[in-house]
Structure formats: structure tokens, C-alpha cells
């Protein structure tokens, strides 16, 4: 689990690991199924070693999970830096683009067949994401994330259409 995400969740209040896990699950909805529950604890241990969180034993002897985690000053600073940072995930279009060019120039594969295969995969993903999005109640946090995934997949599929036009054109000219 990305350390900043866990840190930022702790900024709300000191928490047990299982509370963080539940909050993550709620924010992610069906997407959270991909998350391994142990990852939260692994991350917390790392954060503690790095001095970004501290832990104390809570007064709850009936629970196995008694540690409460608290942000340190350094942890607070790290969260502030993370919130101020502007980042956007890079879709890896370059590799696909170069793959088409390499396939065509070496005569190794038909670029249009590569485009078709990619489209098949993206449409399956779109279907999954769309199903999940339609199943979310209006206003759910996870629904908003799913909508973003759907829109990105649509953008990628638009670009594949452009690839298809381009490579069809090249084939017809040659």
C-alpha cells in the first residue's frame, strides 16, 4: 500500500489497523477486493520504522489487534507534502505506439491485428467497470472512482480508433 495514503488516513485520528482497512474498503467499493488486507499492516510497520508513525498499546485486552497508530510530526509533514504535490498517472501509450511501428516496419505482425487485440481487452475491462459503476448507488465514493476508470477506458478506445484509421490508411497507400 502506498505509504502516503495510510499516513493521510491517520491524519484524521489515531486508528487501529483494522479501522484503516475498513475505511479503505469503503472508499474503494468493489475495487477494494483487489486489496490484500495484510498490506495495511506491512505498510504500517514500514512507516513506524521510518519514524512517520508511532504506535501505542490500547486498553483492549480482548482484541488481538491492540496497537493504535498515531502520526508523528514528520508524518504530518509528509502528508502535507503529498497533498500539495500534483501528479497524474501516465497512461503508457508510447510503448503501444512503438509496438505498432516496430511490428509494421519489421513485417512481424499486422498492426491492425494488434489494435484489434488491444480493443478486445479494453472493451472487456470497460464492460466490467461499467457493470460495477451501474451497480453502485448514486453518490457512492466508489462509484466516482469507477466513473473515472470508465472515462479513461473510453479515451483509450478513442485513441485506438485513431490508430486503426492511421494504420488502415498506411496499408491502403502501400
Amino acid at each position: 500500500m502506498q505509504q502516503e495514503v495510510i499516513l493521510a488516513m491517520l491524519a484524521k485520528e489515531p486508528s487501529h489497523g483494522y479501522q484503516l482497512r475498513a475505511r479503505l474498503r469503503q472508499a474503494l467499493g468493489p475495487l477494494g477486493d483487489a486489496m490484500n488486507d495484510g498490506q495495511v499492516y506491512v505498510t504500517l510497520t514500514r512507516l513506524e520504522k521510518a519514524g512517520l508513525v508511532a504506535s501505542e498499546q490500547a486498553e483492549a485486552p480482548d482484541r488481538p489487534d491492540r496497537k493504535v497508530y498515531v502520526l508523528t510530526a514528520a508524518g504530518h509533514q509528509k502528508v502535507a507534502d503529498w497533498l500539495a504535490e500534483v501528479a497524474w498517472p501516465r497512461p503508457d501509450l508510447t510503448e503501444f505506439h512503438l509496438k505498432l511501428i516496430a511490428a509494421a516496419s519489421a513485417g512481424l505482425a499486422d498492426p491492425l491485428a494488434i489494435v484489434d487485440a488491444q480493443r478486445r481487452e479494453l472493451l472487456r475491462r470497460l464492460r466490467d467497470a461499467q457493470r460495477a459503476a451501474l451497480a453502485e448507488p448514486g453518490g457512492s465514493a466508489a462509484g466516482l472512482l469507477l466513473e473515472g476508470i470508465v472515462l479513461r477506458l473510453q479515451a483509450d478506445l478513442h485513441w485506438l480508433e485513431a490508430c486503426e484509421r492511421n494504420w488502415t490508411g498506411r496499408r491502403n497507400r502501400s
Partner: protein
Amino acid sequence: MSDTGNAPLLRAAGLRKEYGKGEGLVRAVDGVDLDVARGETLAVMGPSGCGKSTLLHLLGGLDRPSGGELWLAGRRIDHLGERALAGLRRDTIGFVFQAFHLMDELTAVENVELPALLAGRSARPARRRAAELLDQVGLADRARFLPSALSGGQRQRVAVARALVSDPQVVLADEPTGNLDSQATLEVLRLLEHLHAAGQTLVIVTHDSRIAATADRLISMRDGAFVDETRLTGGSTGNLGGLAGLTEMCEREA
């Protein structure tokens, strides 16, 4: 071929449509073989001019093929006369068009019941069925509105209700969301998913990947021919987390 068991509802074999002659010959549909099963949703995608709309018009008997065979519910239909074809369109096929094609001077419910009245159904049952369908598409409270008082998405939902009024064997949709914004597209999308779940056979020609993603099967067309086929049902990636970059985020060690 009989209309029982697993026979496809719609079948095309070597279907062709040509325009012009000699140097100017255009093969709009160039030897298409297609089976559509009962209850299946099929999407056809492809660049503009690839022949997908022409194909849909051939399947619906709106246009006549230059060659090949066409079967609907076990009946060969490519040789039917004009009158028989008109009857077939009215009784067994529902159409949904990009531009809705509603009658501006009729209310929503009047638009929906019109094909049933033209097919000879009496006024009362036709109205009852039209009202039911408007309810199904979520527009019961808009029944007495003129199309001009409805949003784009609502108009297209009226058009879908109209396509269903004769209980067609198959609904053919030509760019059903082509004129709609994303919110209205979502309305139509939900409706198509609903029809699909209810077992309606659907053939949808579309540019919109969201609409195509609702299909069981997707066919890509180029230059009048099928070039790729994708089965979308089953074979789910089962990895929504991967889609959101969640897996990467979990594995990343900052």
C-alpha cells in the same frame, strides 16, 4: 430451417450490398456471414463508411441486398416483396434511430402506440401497452408530453418504447446515442442493459464504446466486411483493482 431449438433468430449468409457500377462500384457490405442467437445483444462497430449502417438496414428489411441470403426466425426474407417486407418490419422488428424519428405533433404515448395502431390493434389495448412501456422506460409521468418538451435522452427512451410496442423478435438500433450527451447516454445505456437482461434480442450499430460494452458479442467492420469478433460475456478480467491502478498503488513502496 425451422424456427425451433437453437436455430439463430437472425442469419445472414454471403450478404452483399453494392452501389454504382464498373470503376465507381462501392461494396458497402461485402460478403457478411452472421448468426444472432435469440436473446443475444450484438454490437457492430467500425469507422464511418465501413458499411455498418447499411448492414443494419439490410437486416431490418429497410434496404434490399444485392446478393446473399437473409433469414429471420427461420424464414427467408431477402426475396420478399415490398408488401410482405413492410408487414415483416411492422410485426417482427423494432427500430431505434440516432435522430429518434418521433412525430413532433404527437405526445409520447401517442408516438409509442402508433405502430400498434397501424398494425391493426384496437385503440384501448394499444394505449394500455404504450403506457406500460413508457412506465418501463421510466417515463410514465411524461406520457402526455410532446417530444419538444422532452430531453434528448427522454426522446430516445420514448423511441425505444415505440420500438417495443409490437413485441418485436429483434430490436435494431442505429447509433442510438449518437445525438446524446453523456448523461443521456447513460439513461439509454441503463435501458439497453435492462432489455438485454429481459431477454430481448438486440443488434446495435454504434460508435460509442460504452454502448458496445453492454453487448454479449462485438463485431468490428472495415470496408464492408467483418474483421474481428469479441465475445464480451464471460472471460471477465476479474481485476477491477488493476483498472484503477490500485494494484500498482498497493505494490509501490514509496
